[in-house]
């Protein structure tokens, strides 16, 4: 390695501002992606409470779901859903980076890999929806 280097006393250490994530669009979107986990976690807590209520008497469960019908909670669930969708979409984008898929010699471009993931997700969602509707009736 190098036997010489700058005098540490004379170096100026640049500070990162706490608002670093507002300096460009990529950083901002990254923070939104990270934030999405918080909303998903919150949703999960509500969902677990819901399940817990379900394990008790039907009255308790109904009372609980009535509370969730309020505009505040609906808004929360809408926001959580949007974040969850964003979370999943960025996950599919990440998968495209991690898995270089090939057809023979040619590399499949990342947007296409992401689109394939989204497509598969849509198909699975439709199947689940159909099952749900079938079981409901």
């Amino acid at each position: 390695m190098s036997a010489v280097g700058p005098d540490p006393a004379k170096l100026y250490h640049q500070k990162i501002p706490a608002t670093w994530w507002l300096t460009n669009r990529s950083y901002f979107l990254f923070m939104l992606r990270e934030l999405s986990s918080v909303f998903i976690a919150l949703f999960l807590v509500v969902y677990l409470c819901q399940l817990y209520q379900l394990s008790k008497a039907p009255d308790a469960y109904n009372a609980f779901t009535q509370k969730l019908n309020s505009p505040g909670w609906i808004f929360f669930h809408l926001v959580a859903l949007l974040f969850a969708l964003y979370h999943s979409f960025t996950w599919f984008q990440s998968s495209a980076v991690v898995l270089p898929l090939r057809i023979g010699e040619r590399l499949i471009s990342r947007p296409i890999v992401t689109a394939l993931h989204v497509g598969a997700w849509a198909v699975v969602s439709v199947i689940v929806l159909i099952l749900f509707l079938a079981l409901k009736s």
Partner: protein
Amino acid sequence: MRDFDSLDLHAKDTIFGADFLADQDAVEAFVQEAPGELIQLEHWGCPWSRDPDGRVSVRSFGGMSVDRTLFAADKTGFHLLHSLFQTSLKYESIVRYDECFLTSLLVDDGKVRGVTSINLYTGKVEVIAGKSVILCTGGGGRIFPFTTNAAINTGDGMAAAYRAGVPLKDMEFVQYHPTGLPGTGILITEASRGEGGWLKNKDGYRYLQDYGLGPPTDTPTHRKMELGPRDILSRCHMQEFAKGRTFDGPYGHYVHLDLRHLGEEVIDKKLPFVRELASKYVGIDPVYEPIPVRPVVHYMMGGVSTDINAKTNLEGLFAAGETACVSLNGANRLGSNSLTELLVFGNRAGRSAATYASTASPPAAAKIEALATDEQRRLDRQFLKKDGGKEKIATIRQEMQKTMEEGAGIYRDEQSMQKTCNTLRALRERFKNIIIEDRDSTFNTEVMNALELDYMLDVAETVANSALRRKESRGSHTRTDFPKRDDANFLKHTLAYRTPDGPRIEYLPVTITRWQPEERKY
């Protein structure tokens, strides 16, 4: 090395390409050791391009009779550098002194004792003592205005050796690479011609066929047309210019390097960097348009005079690579021989230096101290504590570059060379009056630039004076007043020794072993 190749063939191509000024014992040693060194680099991780069977690929290159040039896409030098550097990190015993700028060789009692350098971080002059010193500081292309060379190629090691009494050999031989981008001088690698690129003048004509390099073929033919040697191709360009058949642009004359017929797939696979450079720096996509190119200074065949073991006439001092002149490349170098030269002679220099160091006695500390104090005084006086002055560093540098282009370019004659020698002497005087504005010690690049200019003026003088004395044309040294090669009088190397009034020129015979000089026709 492939079955269709042989050591003798490589040697012959090199000697022929050098216009018979290469020392043939050096060439023979070189071709012998070259294949092993290239494989050594492969073992050290160099990502050579490969054939389907897994063996390293070879391709055509200028002046070579057969396909023998190994390559790592179109960035072989880059990959060799990184492979070598990364492998060197393995060895704790290798200590680097990053960003310490060489200011002089320490010489005592006829032996080299180490170097003095300015530690750029602190601005202090420091001694790095050593029983052996190897100079491998590259070439000095920056003495010219248009060059492929990076900013750091200012001939530092050459000048340092010159000042220590070591002669610089064959300095007049400066290679112009035929395909650099106009303006920036950025290199468009010879590989583009190896893969089949064509050079066309403003009429879309492959003009090289008019100069004895034909007949033109659709695919490259060894040593013909665009695969001719660099000095000849550069001269052809200049002759086309004289005939008014080159394009004219904001940076002067240029011709076209046409790669369109190679197709996008070949270009992306074999010449991706070329595509990137052309697109970025001249806005041309070579898949669809030809690239504007012109000859630019690329390589110095000359350098610190060494023998075939990289030894100089100063005990303990060795040199290798472009800094040195063994001479492997004589009056003109073939493409791809330089990188290989680094490996072969780098190895030889290392071994010679280690052998010498193991038997040499360590330098006396007191003597070193005294030399270092002298050097500190010199640097303080001339650079670090210099007051006043009226010349900008850039002004002197630009005037030096201008006069080098005028007098020591592709075509030379007595009058313009003499004028250049005189101008350089005058610039030497004017250099004493440079302004150094930056007085800070931390990372003072202005002092560094001044030191580099100081070195460049020395190197430039050896080039111009050596050129003036060689009254013949050979390889890349072409004179309109002496257009023929003169083996009777000039089958010898030029040696430039430093005196306070400029270089003193002497001569050294060329070592001929098995290849008698013949006419150099392609």
